[in-house]
């Protein structure tokens, strides 16, 4: 029942994000300068932000940004992790140690500072759309090490299975063994890594957004919407009186929860 509810919820969020141009009452960038910080009304269902932009429109477009690009970044991270994890599983001796060292080193890097540095080195004259794609691409490229360790362990187990040993002893090339016998059997692990990476990247982009380094203005994302909360959270009474401001937080939490219920390690067994 809970899984069905989560599936319906996720489907609704994805569909509304995809249909943002049709559903949003106005452009996400349009500034109604006579109504900044407006409370919810018939005109602005979720009120307006500091610049008078419709919060509902920004939430819909922001969901599209975060929900479409986070899976893309997760796919990129899992692809890199599959290549690195697979190679590490096949390697022995010094190369194996080198792979494991690379995993550990990458995981121990202060990725936030690394992202800040890489982001600062990127050209400035990129459009907001390109900037958001670059941000998620960076997240994907830098987020491979964790999944790679898991994939290596799983691949090593499969490689020592009888049917793989039999295939190898019959003289099948190693690449064919990998592609035909190992990879299909890794599918559940890859799927779990993919789905569990999505919320990680959504939260990472939100973190970058909080620093003002995620998605460029005026394009919204969940990160930039969360950043708008900065300074508003100075008292519980104040927050309760303006509870509609918490819509992006609620949506982010519920989405992450739904993804975990549907595709988390316990449920994916």
């Amino acid at each position, binding site marked *: 029942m809970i899984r069905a509810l989560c599936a319906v919820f996720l489907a609704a969020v994805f569909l509304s994000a995809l249909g943002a141009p049709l559903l949003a009452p106005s452009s996400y*960038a*349009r*500034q109604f*300068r006579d109504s*900044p910080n407006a409370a919810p009304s018939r005109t602005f269902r979720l009120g307006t932000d*500091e*610049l*008078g932009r419709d919060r509902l429109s920004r939430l819909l477009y922001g969901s599209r940004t975060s929900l479409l690009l986070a899976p893309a970044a997760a796919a990129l991270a899992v692809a890199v992790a599959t290549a690195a994890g697979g190679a590490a599983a096949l390697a022995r001796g010094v190369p194996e140690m080198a792979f494991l060292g690379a995993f550990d080193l990458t995981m121990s890097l202060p990725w936030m500072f690394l992202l*800040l540095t890489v*982001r*600062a080195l990127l050209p*400035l*004259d*990129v*459009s*907001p759309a390109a*900037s958001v794609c670059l941000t998620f691409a960076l997240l994907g490229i830098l987020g491979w090490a964790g999944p790679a360790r898991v994939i290596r362990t799983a691949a090593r187990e499969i490689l020592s299975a009888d049917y793989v040993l039999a295939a190898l002893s019959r003289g099948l090339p190693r690449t064919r063994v990998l592609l035909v016998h190992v990879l299909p059997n890794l599918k559940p692990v890859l799927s779990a890594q993919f789905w569990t990476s999505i919320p990680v990247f959504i939260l990472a982009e939100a973190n970058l957004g909080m*620093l*003002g*380094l995620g998605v*460029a*203005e*005026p394009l919204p994302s969940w990160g930039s919407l969360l*950043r708008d909360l*900065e*300074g508003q*959270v*100075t*008292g519980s009474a*104040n927050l309760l009186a303006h509870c509609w401001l918490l819509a992006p937080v609620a949506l982010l939490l519920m989405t992450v929860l739904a993804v975990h219920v549907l595709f988390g390690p316990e449920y994916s067994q």
Partner: protein
Amino acid sequence: MKQLVLWLAAGAALTAWSAESPRMGGQLRLAIQAEPKTLNPLLASDEPSSLVRYLTTGVLIRLNRATQTLEPELAASWKVGEGGRRISFRLRNGVTFSDGTPFSAQDVCYTIDRILEPGAESMIADAIRFEKGKLVCRADRADAVTLVLPAPRVGFALLWDGVPILSARSAQKDKASLGPFLIAGQKAGAYLLLGRNPRYWKRDAEGRQLPYLDSIRLEIQRNRDFELLRFRSGDFDLINNLSPDSFEKLKAEMPSTVRQLGVSLDSEQMWFNQAPGGPVPAHKKQWFQSRDFRLAVSQAIHRDDIARVVYKGLATPASGPVSPANLFWHNAALRPAPADAKAALSRLVHAGFRMRGQWLYDPSGNPVQFTIVTNSGNQSRQRMAAMIQQDLLATGIRVSVAALDFPSLIDRITQSFDYEACLLGMVASELDPNEQMNVWPSSAGQHQWNPSQKKPATDWEAELDRLMQQQASALDPTNKTRKAAFDRVQQIVVEQAPFIYLVYPNAAVAVAPGVRNVDASVLRPQTLWNAERIYLDARTKTASR
């Protein structure tokens, strides 16, 4: 009946006295946003260190932050002679440092020697160092000191507001204080406690020794939201530099505590990169070097909207480089450019740009688009950039906004010049135009749009050089010649728009109920400039501290 009237009059007088007479004692608490980098008064340059220096040291002349006039402090009087080459101070008699060491002319000369000591690295040194010759300090008598300058220097008297006088003979060395307070305790990363100087020389009208307060506790609180929460809960008594968001919140909840001080000395501005060495495409450089392009961009921006929406009314549309808060040096003839997208577009068309569809193209057919960089983490600036983005759409110009971490931003605008336009603010702490000698001359490092030029790149920059030199060397007691020269500087800056001034943020502070005699000023340290006269009302919670 007559007796009754007398009794009533006496009672009323007593009530008035008990209500008005300042109460001695109590502790004032407020937050500083960072730990002071140094407690050495000669090295103070950051805001917390400067505040501690202000409260714990004495100066010869004090700038009255309310009237912006110079007033005698440790010097009872002063006289400028020999065409500005000689300044004679007559010092107050009977003044002692906090440890009882008498204050004399010897201390003034000792302080100057300390500042000019090789390797001392005092920020004040540059102001009293001369290219040719050396400042000579002569202690004529215990209460008279003469400074002989190798060359006249304008605005020299104002400088002494920032020169802390140290003791030449005290066993406590630099810790001996001539200010209203002295450093009484400190916990790294937590707080700094300033105690009352028991030998402070100032007295109030009733002859009582100042300061009224026993101590001031400066708590290091980096997060301004927490500062606000602690003010609400009565933990803090004052907030300086209140942000527009915090002002709005406090105004709604504790309206009697907030004070709007009006326009500040600071400004927010944007500029285009005109540095020849920067890796900016040649066609974009041409736009940025075009006066019409810069003026059109300036004309398309709705400064009123920025002041109203981003600053919630706590800012004033900017008219030029000097804010009206600088009462004497502001050029009152300048007015903020009214937003007019049509006029901006027609200026661009006149300059050869063309609209095709909804976008603007330059005479060579390149689409007109540029990126504004600003510092990440500053929401007001990012919002301003977003508003400029929308304003410029009306002229067909596409703007991207990139928020960079501060070190990367500074590297781009000062070293690599790899940027197109930048939006930042300028914090002005001094009134005199001499303080802007590092901005307006074409050779200056902070001539941000094209810094450190060997020869002025344009005629108007050559004129800026000449005018700044003229105001720096004109020695007229009324400052008329200087004012005329600096007014022209401001006019040229507005006409040429190398900096496009957006708004002057207003200054606002919060003062807890029960804190009396706070005469807050837009000049730093806003609420504490007359700290020796601040007292706590006996009826408030703060008084129990």
